[in-house]
């Protein structure tokens, strides 16, 4: 069969190394075909379509950048064969193969062929016993908790932590990251628990564990509870109550507001953007113990980023959303969809300029980030004007590298903490206070 490798949304496994590369490549500002292919190879993830998957904010499809684009010109499918354990009493043998990801670069840029994977559909057509196998459990739970999205969420929370104007404390950082990750797992699991019949009907999400009956709903809920409760407890007791409260609030926002709202009103996009904006704020409060302007700015940047990211993605999913009953701007208010995307691209420029004003970064940050932000704004404008598949895809792909790059540049332009300490006793006191709060 013809295996086509499909691009999955970003799963940044090893953020630092990729950042470095991105930095180097981005300096050229020439988005070559090779670069895109590299990005695509880098960003292999599983298909987690579902808005909740939107940008990463913890549970959010909108927030997650892991939307699957359906018909890309350079569409390639990744064959993901699940490693089966053949039970003793199963009469027919399952196609036992190890799970492997195979990438094949597609030579043709346009009109990629989308041929279904032979091996996958064969396994799909069989009847499976609904029995939980312990060997499969880690994989199943990883998919249930959308582990790659969670990793990205933890990444943004770390960015928030790193940007806070206090000396870096490793134990606090680790606790905050772990707590955030657990909370994200919990939220994602509950989201999938709620959305089983809808996920079955959308191409991007039809291979999720609950849809395939690999795990029972009860177990999914128990898993969510066993991640969420320790996660929030860890944040509240091990870091500080503010971070814990934000984490709990975010879980609530994602599972009880965003998920049902997806099927009721287009307002879900804005709620989802907030969900995405909270993790970096949590990182900041974990470090400093308070909600400063810097935290809000970082949250604002993530918030604005969600819109070009998600709106561009949803442009190609209109059919599935329409059939599935999801109320998304791209379906009901296409003009608004594009306007909002452009608006927020421009807002990013403004927010980047505000960073030095608030004392978070030096003035080099807006200067360096300006070309990047201008580029995404340009793509946003093209999307606004052309409103077609190719411009939406370009915008989406740009958003995938834009955010990590922006955060990296922000970090490198961070105002040195020493400088601030020189600025007098007041700051020194607040620094001490922050240290006290951090002590468990």
């Amino acid at each position, binding site marked *: 069969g013809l295996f086509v490798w499909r691009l999955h949304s970003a799963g940044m496994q090893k953020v630092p190394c990729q950042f470095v590369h991105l930095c180097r490549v981005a300096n050229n500002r020439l988005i070559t075909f090779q670069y895109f292919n590299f990005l695509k190879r880098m960003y292999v993830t599983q298909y987690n379509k579902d808005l909740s998957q939107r940008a990463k904010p913890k549970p959010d499809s909108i927030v997650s950048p892991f939307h699957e684009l359906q018909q890309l010109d350079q569409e390639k499918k990744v064959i993901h064969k699940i490693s089966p354990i053949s039970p003793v*009493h*199963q*009469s027919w043998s399952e196609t036992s193969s190890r799970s492997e990801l195979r990438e094949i670069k597609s030579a043709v840029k346009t009109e990629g062929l989308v041929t279904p994977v032979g091996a996958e559909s064969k396994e*799909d*057509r*069989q*009847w*499976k*016993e*609904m*029995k939980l196998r312990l060997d499969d459990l880690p994989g199943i739970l990883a998919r249930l908790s959308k582990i790659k999205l969670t990793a990205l969420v933890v990444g943004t929370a770390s960015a928030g932590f790193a940007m806070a104007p206090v000396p870096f404390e490793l134990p606090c950082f680790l606790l905050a990251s772990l707590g955030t990750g657990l909370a994200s797992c919990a939220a994602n699991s509950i989201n999938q*628990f*709620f959305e*089983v*019949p809808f996920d*079955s*009907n959308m191409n991007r999400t*039809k291979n999720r564990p609950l*849809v*395939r*009956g690999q795990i*029972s*709903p*009860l177990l999914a*809920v128990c898993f969510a509870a066993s991640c969420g409760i320790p996660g929030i407890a860890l944040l509240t007791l091990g870091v500080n109550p503010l971070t814990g409260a934000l984490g709990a609030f975010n879980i609530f926002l994602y599972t009880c507001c965003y998920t*049902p709202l997806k*099927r*009721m009103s287009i307002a879900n996009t804005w709620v989802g953007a907030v969900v995405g904006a909270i993790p970096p704020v949590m990182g900041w409060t974990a470090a400093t113990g308070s909600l400063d302007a810097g935290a809000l700015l970082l949250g604002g940047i993530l918030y604005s980023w969600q819109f070009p990211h998600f709106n561009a993605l949803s442009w*190609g999913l*209109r*059919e599935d*959303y*329409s*059939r599935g*009953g999801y*109320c998304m701007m791209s*379906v*009901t208010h*296409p003009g608004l969809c594009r306007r909002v995307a452009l608006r927020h691209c421009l807002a990013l420029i403004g927010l980047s300029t505000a960073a030095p004003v608030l004392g978070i970064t030096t003035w080099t940050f807006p200067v360096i980030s300006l070309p990047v932000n201008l580029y995404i704004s340009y793509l946003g404008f093209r999307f606004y004007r052309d*409103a*077609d*598949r190719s411009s939406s895809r370009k915008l989406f792909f740009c958003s995938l590298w834009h955010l990590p790059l922006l955060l990296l540049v922000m970090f490198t332009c961070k105002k040195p903490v020493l400088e601030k300490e020189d600025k007098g006793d007041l700051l020194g006191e607040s620094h001490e206070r922050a240290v006290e709060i951090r002590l468990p």
Partner: protein
Amino acid sequence: PPAHSHSDWIGPPDKHSNLRPVIFYVPPEESALERRLREARQEAQACNQRFWARHNRTFRQEKEEFIYSRLKAKGLEMRDESGQKATLNAEEMADFYKDFLSKNFKKHLQYNRDWYKRNFTITFLMGQVALVRALRWLRWKKKNIEQ
């Protein structure tokens, strides 16, 4: 699924509803609680199946009608010279998607409420069954140890 199996079996996605059917195992000494759970799951499955099969069928039909009417308005046939089925591009289909979504909005709201209720009930029953089974097992263990 094999006759001697003691668990539920889940099959491939249904052609119309895209949902995977489940064949439930009925244990010989099924308690009242377990029966309630199984019946709730069967009912939910049937209800979901009905809804999505009909919904998807409606979607396909209306999509065809839309394409047909639009092509006719443009003066084209359903199939062009090479025999390929003529399609409209995404922008033209967008009107249809928007229309379809708003037409079915109330239906979806009703279904959502229904689904959430069923989902919670089933999961709660599963919890109860699991609890009862666990207690039973603990009692059996205790008896074994005492013997």
